[in-house]
């Protein structure tokens, strides 16, 4: 009873908690995902903004270069001073419309810097490579060809940029954007570190994956992987921005959730505790009631025994002919016997509940025990008009508990008296080795097949017109069966066409011979 209650209370608490917890985690997950998504969007927007700034620098440079290159003088002599006055670039290539190098001159006088420039751009002018890819004009019907743009080439361990432009006179000019100069511009365009503390850092990585610039307060372990990346816009698409750092923790939302769950758990535990207390109270109450009845019955037992004893003494001593007195005393004796059975039952029931019922076998004859019990019931049965037919066929002394057997049989006879009045009862005993058998077959209304098991349940009484009038505690048959089982046997209701047919089986070893001799 108690463990089952405990279990159900646990389920009552844990099941809703589990459901709530699961739901809470789902909500927290969703929330985290939402926060992360929002955070991703913000970070990505910041990277986009940084990349756009670089893009604006590059398009500004392209516009300035395009305008500047349009003013490129035609002659080599004029080109040099013009070039010296340019702030955006230091070197340029000039090709004829046919793709031949005009400047710096491949032959003749040129400065050391021009010579080095020609050397590192050899791949562009040798074989007219640049001129070929930036063709002057498409054939008729072709889409218009771009007049200028960036040209990327890799030299000296990194990306290099040329801005080329096809001039109106057909010349192709290309200004070299020094990588370091470009980098200085890009660095200038990107944000610098702000604030005093932070956990993120953004890096600009070049085409070889080297950090060329970084901002933000966060420290980046050497093995860290970026949380977000963004390539720079063309022509610097080989470079990218990499952002390092964790998303901000969503502690606030998580705390609220766990607080809510904790409150629900407390409420449930409180509810369970209340149920537990209430049921404990009922149990205590029931136990107290049983204890009270038990104590009262004990108190009643001694005076009742005295009443019975003196009533029986009086029966013996009264003159035979004083019929009236004899009849009165017989009633007192019978009623006191009935009362003592009732009390015996209650005490046994209480002992059984406390699991203190023990078997006390003594050497005895079953037929004697049955005879004694029947003798006690004689007047009551006679008053109820029940004739007893006896078959005694259990000879020999065995070890059995006479009180216990008397109680079982008494309960059956009590039922006969109550429910089967006016019809004969047949009581037979048999013995087969250790197995003893007593059958009680009355001539009453019997027990419906549907109730055959239920009659043994405590406090059960088959409801019909006949039994409704009868009084009883409702514990007799169940108790009788339990006692029979305690005695190594059973009490069953046999199928019968007329009346109730009970069979008691008992297990009783034969009594030792010495004890038999002694009697």
């Amino acid at each position: 009873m108690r463990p089952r209650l405990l279990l159900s209370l646990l389920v009552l608490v844990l099941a809703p908690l589990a459901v709530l917890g699961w739901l809470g985690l789902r909500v927290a997950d969703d929330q985290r995902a939402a926060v992360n998504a929002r955070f991703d969007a913000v970070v990505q927007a910041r990277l986009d903004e940084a990349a756009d700034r670089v893009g604006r620098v590059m398009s500004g440079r392209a516009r300035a270069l395009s305008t500047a290159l349009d003013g490129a003088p035609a002659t080599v002599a004029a080109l040099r001073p013009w070039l010296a006055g340019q702030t955006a670039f230091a070197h340029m290539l000039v090709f004829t419309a046919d793709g031949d190098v005009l400047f710096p001159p491949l032959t003749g006088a040129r400065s050391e810097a021009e010579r080095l420039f020609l050397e590192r751009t050899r791949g562009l002018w040798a074989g007219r490579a640049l001129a070929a890819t930036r063709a002057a004009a498409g054939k008729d019907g072709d889409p218009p060809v771009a007049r200028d743009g960036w040209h990327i080439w890799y030299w000296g361990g990194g990306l290099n940029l040329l801005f080329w432009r096809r001039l109106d006179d057909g010349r192709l000019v290309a200004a070299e954007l020094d990588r370091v100069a470009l980098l200085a511009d890009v660095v200038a365009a990107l944000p610098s570190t702000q604030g005093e503390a932070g956990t993120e850092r953004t890096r600009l990585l070049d085409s070889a994956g080297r950090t060329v610039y970084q901002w933000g307060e966060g420290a980046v372990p050497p093995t860290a992987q970026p949380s977000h990346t963004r390539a720079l816009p063309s022509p610097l698409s080989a470079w990218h921005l990499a952002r390092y750092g964790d998303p901000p923790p969503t502690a606030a939302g998580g705390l609220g959730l766990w607080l809510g769950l904790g409150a629900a758990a407390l409420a449930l535990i409180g509810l369970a505790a209340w149920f537990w207390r209430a049921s404990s109270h009922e149990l205590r109450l029931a136990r107290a009631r049983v204890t009270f009845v038990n104590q009262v019955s004990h108190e009643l037992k001694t005076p009742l025994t005295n009443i019975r004893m003196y009533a029986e003494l009086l029966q013996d001593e009264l003159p035979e002919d004083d019929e009236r007195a004899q009849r009165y005393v017989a009633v007192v004796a019978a009623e006191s016997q009935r009362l003592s059975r009732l009390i015996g039952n209650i005490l046994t029931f209480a002992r059984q509940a406390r699991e203190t019922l023990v078997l006390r076998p003594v050497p005895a004859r079953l037929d004697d025990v049955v005879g004694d019990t029947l003798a006690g019931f004689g007047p009551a049965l006679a008053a109820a008009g029940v004739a007893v037919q006896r078959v005694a066929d259990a000879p020999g002394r065995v070890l059995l508990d006479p009180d216990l057997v008397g109680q079982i049989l008494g309960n059956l006879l009590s039922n006969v008296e109550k429910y089967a009045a006016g019809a004969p009862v047949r009581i037979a005993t048999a013995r087969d080795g250790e197995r003893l058998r007593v059958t009680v077959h009355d001539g009453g209304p019997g027990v419906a097949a549907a109730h055959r098991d239920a009659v043994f349940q405590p406090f059960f009484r088959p409801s019909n017109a006949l039994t409704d009038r009868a009084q009883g505690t409702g514990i007799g048959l169940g108790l009788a069966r339990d006692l029979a089982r305690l005695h190594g046997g059973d009490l069953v209701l046999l199928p019968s066409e007329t009346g109730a047919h009970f069979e008691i089986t008992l297990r009783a070893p034969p009594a030792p011979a010495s004890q038999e001799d002694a009697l």
Partner: protein
Amino acid sequence: MRRLILSLMLLPALALADGQQVKLDARLGHPSLAAGQKHTSYLKVGLTGFTMEKAGARTPVNVAIVLDKSGSMSGEKIMRAKEAARRAIDHLAPSDIVSIVAYDSTVRVLVPATKASDKETVRAGIDRITPGGNTALFAGVSKGADELQKFLDKNRVNRVVLLSDGLANVGPASPGELEALGARLARLGISVTTLGLGLDYNEDLMSRLARASDGNHVFVEQANDLARFFALEFGDVTSVVARDVSLTIDCAEGVRPVRVLGRDADIVGQRVTARINQLVSEREKFVMLEVEVTPGELGSERPVAQVKVSYGNLATRSTDTLKASVAARFVATPAEMTAAADKWVMVDAVQLIATEKNRMALTLRDEGRNTEAKQVLQDNAVFLEQNFQRWGTSSLKDLSTSNKEDAKNLEGENWNRQRKKMRRVQYQFDMQQSY
């Protein structure tokens, strides 16, 4: 200084006299050449900044102070650097523009370009510097230059003053790359002065960055010298009178331009072009061209070169042009030729040649050829000593002593310090640094 600033405030941009011109002085080391022989001589084109006529008048400046605040700067270094920067701000007039940039692994623009009238804000920015982290030198200079570009004005002195005590290790970090950055900034009219602090900075990187942009370069061994050098630098910045000086030397027939000593220059055929970013008041900067002259007839006079200089005059805010021509006379004997030699041209040429030898010795030492390096330096000291005997100029004697000292310190723990000193002295002579 404070009086100067006050007077500048009271006397805004008055028209300045027309006489304010850079002095051009083009001379051959040997104006007389022995006839019938091929000669190597030196053509010096000197340019001297004028004095601002109005007392206290000066060119407004646009300066970015870029401070290394990497972990190695902790302690006295950063304290001294902040103090020096704070004091340097006092040199600025209210119309000047200043920005403060500090870098470690990343860059912080502590004070974006702002009028120097708000000195409290600038000082507060300097006070916010706390050291820690790596050295993103390239990004620091780039950001400093970016602040300058917000108010980039041809009629201001646009300068980045960089203080670093370490090696660049975030972003571009090679001397070549920083040199390219310097060249890029020079094109925009920005010069970079580099102050190398202590014994751990990369002197090649720092000197090449300064050289490419025609700024100054100093080796500051002790942090307590920082204030002095900042003061010198700000003195230099505030006395610039000319900018974007471009020199063209057209050599006459029979004169071959061989090379330019010290400075970078382009030689294309007979034409030599060089640039000087800015000229300081009353200081001479020059281009020293080595020429080879074909034999001439006795008694004849031959043109050697035509010199053309154009520059931005910061007093008149106009672009001025100067011209000069140099000729040589042919005399009978080498003795006559030597006797007629131009002392100051020759002294400057000797100093530059000795500087070049010094640089060569440093390269040899870098290659592990210590004995050869030592020999070069000792020979250099003797060469300078001989010229001191000839010309009697104490600077030659000093340079001779300096080379002897260099020769002694090629080995052991002194070498690092000595190498920094050598780079600094080379820079001083090559670029005619004002301090």
